């Protein structure tokens, strides 16, 4: 089986961050013995993608697909922006963990699955985009965040932790990495029942350090399971930078150690994400086994909306802001002649209206009735 390590995403980009950057250096002072600051600074450069999307065709995408993906991207950005607003208004229960800046990963990957084939999605906490791409309604998402009875969990679990078996979505538990073996087992289970389906799970640069990552991928590799793992490397796990999280050059360097396919993808290029995941999904469906994909991006907000992000060097955020996945996709669509600026504005207005309506509807969803807790623990 081939095991490639693709060219790092930023190979062609102009260097934006350098070891001589004093502010950046200062932030990295407090690392325990043995953690290499130098190695980190070199790494940061190589992770940065070019400012524009490579001007080419992406996989099996047609004009409709390019536009649909942009629409989803805009939807999730809008949905999340309003989550912040609602959070500040006190309308949200619990914390809010946003995908700002990394939405292209979850949307592109979610879109690459095929619900009609029985594919299943196992999203993580920063993957609202995948829920939407996989058919979840924005209204139900807001219900979930507001703890309403109209939410898929009936108000029992929060934020992005929600399943929807009708759509083939299994929500996560908080324990990062725990869903990886579950997704692998589902892939094998579907195959053993004669289905031709693929399962997809996400994990972060932090979650990738947990034991289940290893156990699950090893299990998948041995079974040649129809499984795809997307690693969202957004460079931070809560406040922990990747230099204190893993020692390898890239997370994807682990692929050869499992004997599976590994790919690096520019996580701020929604079309490349889609293309890469789509290829992996197709390969898995044809019996080609699991793939792990490292999508490189940058978390543009704090870990949650109550975290002010002070530990992230501003330079890093500025450099990545110029590579915002929406801006890049917009420029690409315009350049390709798929959508004019005017058409983009119309699309966005439509989506905005949809979102506002979803909020109104969700806010009208009743609070959950405590009676619903009776007989809620065991299936009969």
């Amino acid at each position, binding site marked *: 089986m081939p095991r490639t390590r693709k060219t790092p995403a930023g190979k062609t980009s102009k260097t934006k961050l350098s070891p001589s950057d004093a502010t950046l250096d200062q932030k990295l002072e407090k690392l325990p013995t043995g953690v290499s600051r130098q190695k980190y600074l070199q790494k940061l450069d190589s992770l940065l993608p070019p400012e524009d999307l490579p001007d080419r065709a992406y996989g099996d995408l047609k004009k409709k697909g390019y536009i649909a993906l942009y629409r989803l991207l805009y939807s999730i950005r809008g949905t999340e922006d309003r989550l912040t607003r609602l959070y500040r208004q006190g309308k949200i229960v619990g914390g809010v963990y946003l995908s700002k800046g990394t939405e292209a990963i979850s949307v592109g990957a979610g879109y690459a699955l095929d619900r009609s084939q029985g594919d299943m999605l196992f999203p993580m906490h920063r993957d609202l985009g995948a829920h939407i791409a996989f058919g979840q309604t924005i209204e139900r998402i807001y219900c979930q965040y507001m703890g309403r009875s109209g939410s898929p969990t009936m108000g029992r679990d929060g934020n992005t932790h929600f399943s929807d078996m009708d759509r083939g979505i299994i929500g996560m538990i908080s324990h990062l990495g725990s869903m990886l073996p579950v997704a692998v087992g589902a892939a094998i289970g579907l195959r053993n029942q004669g289905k031709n389906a693929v399962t997809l799970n996400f994990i972060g640069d932090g979650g990738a350090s947990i034991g289940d990552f290893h156990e699950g991928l090893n299990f998948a590799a041995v079974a040649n399971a129809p499984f795809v793992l997307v690693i969202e490397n957004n460079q931070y796990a809560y406040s922990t930078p990747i230099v204190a999280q893993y020692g390898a050059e890239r997370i994807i360097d682990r692929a050869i150690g499992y004997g599976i396919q590994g790919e690096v993808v520019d996580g701020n290029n929604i079309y490349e994400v889609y293309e890469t995941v789509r290829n992996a999904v197709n390969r898995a469906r044809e019996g080609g086994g699991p793939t792990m994909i490292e999508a490189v991006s940058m978390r543009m907000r704090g870990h949650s909306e109550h975290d002010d992000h002070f530990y992230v060097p501003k330079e890093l955020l500025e450099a990545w802001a110029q590579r915002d996945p929406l801006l890049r996709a917009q420029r690409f669509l315009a350049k390709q002649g798929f959508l004019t600026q005017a058409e983009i504005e119309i699309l966005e207005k439509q989506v905005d209206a949809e979102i506002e309506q979803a909020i109104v509807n969700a806010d009208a969803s009743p609070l959950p009735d405590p009676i619903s807790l009776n007989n809620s623990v*065991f*299936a009969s």
Partner: protein
Amino acid sequence: MPIMTYIQAISDGMREEMRRDPKVMVMGEDVGVYGGAFKVTKGFIDEFGADRVYDTPLSESAIMGCGLGMAITGLRPIVEFQFADFITSGFNQVVNNAGTMFFRTGNNVSAPVTIRCPSGAGVHGGPFHSQSPEAWFVHTPGLKVVAPSTPYDAKGLMISAIRDNNPVLYFEHKFLYRRVKEEVPEGLFTVPIGKAEVKMAGDDISVIAYGASVHLALDAAERLAEEGISVEVLDLRSLYPFDKEAIVETVKKTGRVLVAHEAWLTGGVGGEYASFIAEECFEMLDAPIKRLGSRDMPFPFAPQLEDKMVLNSETVYRALKDLAQY
């Protein structure tokens, strides 16, 4: 009716249900070609094939997690931990992932996984091959827990566990594997989860026990019968949900109760049953409720040490005698 050992009955229950329902499968380390560390699944791979008798890598968390994943796609996996002691390596998958699945999905997704836990001491296994960790799971919502003491119950509860639409932890006691046998019906039958059984009727004192401790209680009861003391032995069989009516009934009858298990005393499930009795049967009691368990320390390796650490029938006998004389 054929005579079966406890371990044969476990195998037989699994085999019969696998024959009936093609969705049922087994997974774990060495369950396939080797037939399991205790040979419970010997021959299964020939009958059911390698996909239904699934040999896994050495990774308890993935075994449990993948089992859960298979379950949500419609299969009914029997997940085997090679020893109950190793469930700690897949603990999070059991308690937080499997245990909450039905609840947290708004009752949308269920998790019909049977979790086999070969447990118990007396086989010179040392600290990590002798444990009886059922209390952790009785305390965790969303999990059912059973612990048969006889071949009949072992088979019937196995079939019930597999058919249950929830995660069921099945604590089988290694010491009993080849030491107890009895007539067990061929084919399919069930023992309901949540129902206790009086294994010996008596009037003076009740022992509430499960698993290997039932046999300690029966031994002690026989000795006491000779001394004219009549002991009722209630075998809980299901640790959660547990049979509250049966407990109340036996306490009502005797007014004196001993709760006994091989698990560590402190924080053991005995505390649950004893305090249930203390609360619900206060007026029925003629003596303090007595609890017994193994000593609060890791299970020692040397037989001389293990003997003095693990609950035994002499200790049960003496506790009952004390109760009788209270």
